[in-house]
């Protein structure tokens, strides 16, 4: 689905990256712990997180994650938004909790970028 579809499904606000709403996203990873994102997420996925600090954006940048969806209506600082703009990473913001976000997107066809952690016990971050 397109990033614009994700916005519509979740009644989300586009905080940055308006020009990238047409990018296609097929997978997602949801976590508040960036340690786990760095260990298990794959490039190109949507990062669903309640962590709205600069490290979430820098984690997404390190892994070539397509976009970040901030859930639970977490407050966003100017620093967070400015770094996202600088690193060219789209940010969506929704008041839905993570469970609702994942359920609604899965129902519409988005899948996990990994299904189980056993699947990632190789050395690739492809």
């Amino acid at each position, binding site marked *: 689905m397109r990033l614009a579809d994700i916005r519509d499904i979740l009644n989300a606000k586009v905080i940055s990256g308006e020009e990238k709403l047409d990018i296609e996203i097929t997978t997602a990873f949801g976590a*508040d*712990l*960036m*340690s*786990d994102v*760095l*260990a298990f997420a794959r*490039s190109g996925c949507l990062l669903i997180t309640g*962590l709205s*600090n*600069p*490290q*979430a954006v*820098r*984690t997404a*940048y*390190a*892994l*070539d994650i397509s976009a970040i969806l901030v859930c639970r209506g977490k407050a966003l600082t100017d620093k967070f938004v400015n770094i996202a703009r600088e*690193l060219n990473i789209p940010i969506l913001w929704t008041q839905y909790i993570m469970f609702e976000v994942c359920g609604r997107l899965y129902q519409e066809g988005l899948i996990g970028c990994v299904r189980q952690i056993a699947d990632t016990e190789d*050395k*690739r*971050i*492809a």
Partner: protein
Amino acid sequence: MPRDEHLEGIYYIQGRDFVDAGVVSSEIKKRLKDKGITEDVIRKVAVITFEAEVNIISYADQGTIQLFIEPDAITVEATDIGPGIDDIELALQEGYSTADDSIREMGFGAGMGLANIKKFSDVFELTSEPGNGTCLKSVVRLDSE
């Protein structure tokens, strides 16, 4: 051991500077993109340097990350002055952590960092002198998949 002629950059990191955690990793990634290195290799080096940077900020007084680009590999050397690691084998176990709340608020401290660096490295060396500091060397081959 990479030679000085392959030294691409030295990045200074201040301990407990949580606000800027990840800045060095982002800088290194930008620099590697300019060099035309493949995306898979850049992603690995970006994750390795991010984790190493967070470790220095979280646990050490100060440290440096040195980046070497050789014809066949990228080497990252993270050296710090700090308390060091008493039991390296234990520190490498996934889930083992001595992180405090300030580290966890940042989204880290799950005990995944060193294991993650090792997972994405083709060569991984970790040495430490308890009471003095830690030295981590990670090599990613340019042809690694």
